[in-house]
């Protein structure tokens, strides 16, 4: 057995003796990888109506992206992803050529060149306190004038020159907690009016000289009823706000230094009003909208301050900001939901009953409600005004409507993926063969001639392009059936909006998408969020006639005690099979390694009160579960308290109505990290679907080491509380990083190690018997990566062949965590240049292929590094036998080989996660990287040793064989003839 292991190992070593490079040739780009660019849910959009800017729209999104989109096709002209902590508060266009963005809570102001997206200038605005932020770009009739931008942020008002970003003047308000709500510009005189609230009950108006920031006038008035939130400015001297109880409308007029309040009860305007009302954000002249529990009411405000309801709409409604069409005239868009379609109305500001445009648009699929609408006008061919509307839907998609049609759509929900799983494609059935005769014989021959030319490097540039195009076309990668190598799969992704997408791994197209109704806002479930998705049913025995399905778990509120939601979705058809709300919360979802007769995987859901609930709810599942009842353990991590607990199952739940699917739990062990010195920052376990090929590792001196392979291991990293902030916030003396390897069944600490003077963030990956983690070393001022390998000593004696022959070994005995297997660990640290966003490891079908670590770098790229660089047995001068084993000489830092970036020249902006899935072919692994962008590729960590490459020329091989056979025959005939001639001589 050892010999067999040894020979196999030597074989593997021979295979991997050369460091395999993952690099591709230029013409292989796009062959097995794809890249998609997204921007996220749009928050603001501004149109530019002059010059070339006419054709584009600038948007800012919730993923902190600012992008310029083509209005004709929806493509991205340019795009900038600001960091995750740099949320965009507002955008505007200044001087018709700059896009101004205010971000980071009103402290960073940037200007971008509109045509190409280059940053023109950047200003950091200082302030004393956190406040709301407000961006105001005054409109001016004179273009060449040095326009100033008014920014309120961090408690001060700044006037910033839009040409070079210099702060012209800054003004601090005398009142401490003044929050600016609106800025009103007076064109005739160079003054601006700033209105806002101090606290919740004082209304202030400041009149400021726009040239120098001089405070001209300050009026304030208090209202004992209090204000709440949203403000609607209905004219230059009047605004409408709700009182604190949200049941009364307050009209505040502030003309000539006099502030007067006027109360109107909503119940007087809208019958059957109860509860709370919300003012819909709008800036219309003399009109505002109030959303109540029953309907949206549009209320006009006369110059005397009289309120009058002009219309009531019971459907969900969204209104846009006003769009000035001509002098003194403004229009706005109103979007309502019909049964299956949406109605877009464009109305004139002063006249509710005049519809400039009335369109009914049918949507091709479920996209939920309209969340936002932005309108833009254009001049039609007949010189009249046309309108187009950009709408943001509930599923975060972006649609452009024009002439009653959807011109383009962007599935920007894919920028916020929260869960990924894979699903097989349907098996190719007889009769529905997708294969067809490709081209005629001549085409086929021509193609192969081209390929031969390409191989012999005789092809010209156009021919190379033709070859690549042919490869892309002829490859069967985008078929909708399962392939022999398992390269074609469906990636099922769950997005923040509660929409599921199925992406084809071949070309990344969306096969189906489904907005889950169970994850949409309802009366009972106010703020549902998805948690994750799991493979629910993966049919193997009935693969021909049963479809796989996924389980989507969500909860009603972000808090941990919110009730859970389950939804089951067929992955072939994209239909929701079943969904229901749970009567308990979901804190943890544990997919169990058991399935029932229909191959539905058993899942254990742990609720906030510590009870375990079994799904699927069937008697059979319970029977399967009861068999393994005493062998089910799990752990929970309480990051806030610094406690890790182990749990086991007890009998059925007590105190409840007879429920066979609910089980009580008990605490088995606990580890308490002292809160004064340690704070849990990272916990990592092995992936449940990982396959380990061999437990033994043959080392150089013909010795065997046994990997300690347990699925119940947990890696925990803690830092001292002072060092839990950003790098640089703590000195090396007061920061330390402690790492633990814990057995989750018994709570035994297998390994514990301190890194003095180091701190997080820690990113770790746990695979087989090793852990690699990344952290910052404050003493060395560098990032480090450390590897820990765990070996089983209790099996170390199994080296004697005689013992193995006689069966005196413990290799087949069941492993129990209670046996306290002795383990040894080996570890080593290396410097690493990059900071890291995510780490994962490649997974293959049988676990034979050597592993690569996939590191998502700070530059939003994915770097593949051979696990051999992280071998703790690397030494400065490896012996000859160690070299043969493949141990690299020790270096203090890890090399970064530019060719080993799997994303090659691309960037996965805002990278958040890397998911690997094994293909059926042992040498290949599928890698899906997501963030704002998506990237998919196929890797072969040890090269494709078990198959021919895709561009292998079978024709050349055939021709060679045929030529050889012909040559054999010819020479045979010739030699026969010669023999005969010789004999006749």
């Amino acid at each position, binding site marked *: 057995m050892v010999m067999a292991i040894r020979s196999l190992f030597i074989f593997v070593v021979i295979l991997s003796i050369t460091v395999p490079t993952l690099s591709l040739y230029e013409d292989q780009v796009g062959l097995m990888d794809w890249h998609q660019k997204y921007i996220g849910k749009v928050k603001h959009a501004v149109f530019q109506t002059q010059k070339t800017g006419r054709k584009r729209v600038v948007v800012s999104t919730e993923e902190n992206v600012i992008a310029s989109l083509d209005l004709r096709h929806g493509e991205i002209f340019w795009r900038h992803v600001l960091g995750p902590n740099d949320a965009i508060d507002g955008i505007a266009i200044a001087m018709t050529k700059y896009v101004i963005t205010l971000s980071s809570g009103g402290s960073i102001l940037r200007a971008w060149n509109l045509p190409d997206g280059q940053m023109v200038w950047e200003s950091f605005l200082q302030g004393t306190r956190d406040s709301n932020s407000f961006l105001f770009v005054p409109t001016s009739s004179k273009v060449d004038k040095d326009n100033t931008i008014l920014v309120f942020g961090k408690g001060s008002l700044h006037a910033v020159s839009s040409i070079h970003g210099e702060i012209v003047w800054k003004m601090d308000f005398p009142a401490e907690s003044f929050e600016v709500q609106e800025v009103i510009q007076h064109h005739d005189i160079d003054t601006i009016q700033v209105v806002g609230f101090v606290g919740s009950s004082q209304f202030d108006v400041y009149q400021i000289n726009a040239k120098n920031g001089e405070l001209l006038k300050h009026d304030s008035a208090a209202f004992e009823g209090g204000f709440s939130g949203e403000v609607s400015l209905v004219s230059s001297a009047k605004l409408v706000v709700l009182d604190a109880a949200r049941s009364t409308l307050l009209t505040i007029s502030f003309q000539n230094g006099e502030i007067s309040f006027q109360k109107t009860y909503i119940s007087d305007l809208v019958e059957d009003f109860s509860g709370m009302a919300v003012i819909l954000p709008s800036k219309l002249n003399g009109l505002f909208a109030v959303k109540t529990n029953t309907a949206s009411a549009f209320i006009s405000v006369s110059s005397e301050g009289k309120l009058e309801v002009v219309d009531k709409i019971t459907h969900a409604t969204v209104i846009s900001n006003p769009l000035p069409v001509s002098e003194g005239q403004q229009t706005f868009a109103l979007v309502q939901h019909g049964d299956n379609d949406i109605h877009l109305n464009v109305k004139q500001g002063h006249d509710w009953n005049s519809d400039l445009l009335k369109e009914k648009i049918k949507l091709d699929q479920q996209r939920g409600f309209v969340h936002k609408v932005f309108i833009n006008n254009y001049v039609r061919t007949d010189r009249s005004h046309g309108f187009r509307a950009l709408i943001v839907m509930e599923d975060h998609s972006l649609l452009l409507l024009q002439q009653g049609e959807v011109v383009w759509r962007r599935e920007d929900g894919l920028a916020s993926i929260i869960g990924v799983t894979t699903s097989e494609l349907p098996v190719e059935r007889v009769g529905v063969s997708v294969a067809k005769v490709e081209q005629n014989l001549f085409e086929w021959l021509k193609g192969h001639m081209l390929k031969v030319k390409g191989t012999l490097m005789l092809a010209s540039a156009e021919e190379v392009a033709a070859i690549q195009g042919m490869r892309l076309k002829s490859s069967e990668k985008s078929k909708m059936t399962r392939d022999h190598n398992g390269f074609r799969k469906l990636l099922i992704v769950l997005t923040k909006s509660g929409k599921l997408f199925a992406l084809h791994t071949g070309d990344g197209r969306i096969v189906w998408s489904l907005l889950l109704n169970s994850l949409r806002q309802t009366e009972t479930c106010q703020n549902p969020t998805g948690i994750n998705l799991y493979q629910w049913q993966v049919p193997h025995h009935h693969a021909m006639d049963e479809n796989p399905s996924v389980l989507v778990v969500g909860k009603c509120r972000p808090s941990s005690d919110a009730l859970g939601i389950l939804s089951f979705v067929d992955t072939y058809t994209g239909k929701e099979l079943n969904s229901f709300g749970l009567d308990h919360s979901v804190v943890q979802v544990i997919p169990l390694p058991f399935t029932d007769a229909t191959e539905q995987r058993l899942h254990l859901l742990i609720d906030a009160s510590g009870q375990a609930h079994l799904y699927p709810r069937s008697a059979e599942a319970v029977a399967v579960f009861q068999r393994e009842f005493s062998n089910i353990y799990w752990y929970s991590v309480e990051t806030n308290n610094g406690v890790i607990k182990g749990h086991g199952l007890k009998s059925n739940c007590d105190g409840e109505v007879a429920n066979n699917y609910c089980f009580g739990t008990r605490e088995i*062990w606990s580890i*308490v990290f002292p809160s004064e010195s*340690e704070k849990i920052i990272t916990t990592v376990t092995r992936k449940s679907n990982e396959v380990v090929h061999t437990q033994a590792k043959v080392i150089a001196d013909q010795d065997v080491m046994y990997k300690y392979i347990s699925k119940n291991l947990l890696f925990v990293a803690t830092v001292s509380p002072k060092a839990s902030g950003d790098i640089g916030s703590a000195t090396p003396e007061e920061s330390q990083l402690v790492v633990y390897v814990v057995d989750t069944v018994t709570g035994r*600490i297998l390994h514990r*190690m301190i890194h003095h003077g180091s701190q997080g963030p820690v990113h770790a990956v746990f695979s087989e018997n090793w852990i690699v983690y990344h952290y910052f070393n404050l003493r060395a001022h560098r990032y480090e990566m*450390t590897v820990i390998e765990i070996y089983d000593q209790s099996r170390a004696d199994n080296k004697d062949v005689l013992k193995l022959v006689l069966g005196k070994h413990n290799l087949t005995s069941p492993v*129990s965590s209670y046996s*306290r297997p002795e383990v040894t660990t080996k570890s080593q640290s*290396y410097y690493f240049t990059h900071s890291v966003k995510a780490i994962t490891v490649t997974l293959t079908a049988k676990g034979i292929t050597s592993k690569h670590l996939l590191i998502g770098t700070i530059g939003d790229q994915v770097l593949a590094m051979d696990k051999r660089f992280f071998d703790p047995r690397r030494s400065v001068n490896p012996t000859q036998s160690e070299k043969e084993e493949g141990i690299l000489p020790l270096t203090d830092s890890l090399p970064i080989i530019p060719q080993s970036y799997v994303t090659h020249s691309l960037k996965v902006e805002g990278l958040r996660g890397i998911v690997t899935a094994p293909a059926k072919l042992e040498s290949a692994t599928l890698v899906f990287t997501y963030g704002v962008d998506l990237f998919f590729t196929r890797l072969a960590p040890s090269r494709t040793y078990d198959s021919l490459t895709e561009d292998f020329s079978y024709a050349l091989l055939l021709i060679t064989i045929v030529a050889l056979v012909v040559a054999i025959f010819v020479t045979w005939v010739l030699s026969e003839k010669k023999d005969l001639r010789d004999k006749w001589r």
Partner: protein
Amino acid sequence: MKKKLLLQVFTLLLVISSLHAFQSDELLVDDEEFGLEGGNRQPKERIPDPVVPTRSTPTRRKYSDSDSDSKIQITLEHAFGDTDFFPAATFSARLKTWSHGAQTLTKLRFSRNAFTEVEKQKFQKLLEHDEFYSIRLPSNVLNSPGEDFVMSSVRARCLPRDGLDELFVIHTKNVILLVKLGALRHRGRQEGVNILAVNYGSPGSCPYPRQMKLPAKWSFNSHTVLKNSEQAPRTPIFSEDTLGEQGEGEAVPLPERSFWAKYWMYLIPLGLIVVNAITQAMNIPEEQATGQSGAQPAGAIQRGPSPAVRRR
């Protein structure tokens, strides 16, 4: 009772290395050994390294005037299955405080109360159902015990051998306490000892299909290991010149290649030519020989017709 006490008295796990791989970090506690061993400890160190108390003796002697010891008792509680926790044993230890404020637990003694009849029955019940026998210790041994507990459980069937064999692995942590403790009068910067985790189980293996077995003796055979954390290995740092040497080292092997290895491509053709020349040279005399013998076949050919001639 005395006998039992003797049995329960702390056992020294000196030859841990043969039992456990964590050679460096294990804390071996025994009174006699304690006084004998010694090591060097830098009094300047502020954060104590993983401390093996046996090492710390000289330090204590040096600073005996400023060091202070205080006795503490830690109560071990146990539970049978889902019952509540009851006191079962006590660890008494010395809390050593060094001049620099670090505190460690030393001279750990363990005394376990014998099972009462009720407890025996409970334990037997556990054995029958292969249920959990749990123990717990207070997490913070210095102040406010009874708030947080570290807990550990074992399947009851793992314990019985001859008697009841048990092993405690206690992971401790020295903590810098920023809050001044009222009860323990110490200077400004204060450190405490926290029990991070305790792992309880049988010292030997417990193979999976756990067999029901009643202990022969209802007495405990206890072993305790105290563990502190290990230092991470330093990242190797190569200075410039070693790197340079290595760089040269890569170039050096070139001349080591044998003459043959370097010039085989010239030598083989040369050899072939030589061989060819030799055969050529050999052929010259041969040719002369064949010249003579070559005449014979000619004669043979001639002989062919000649018989025919003769026949004629």
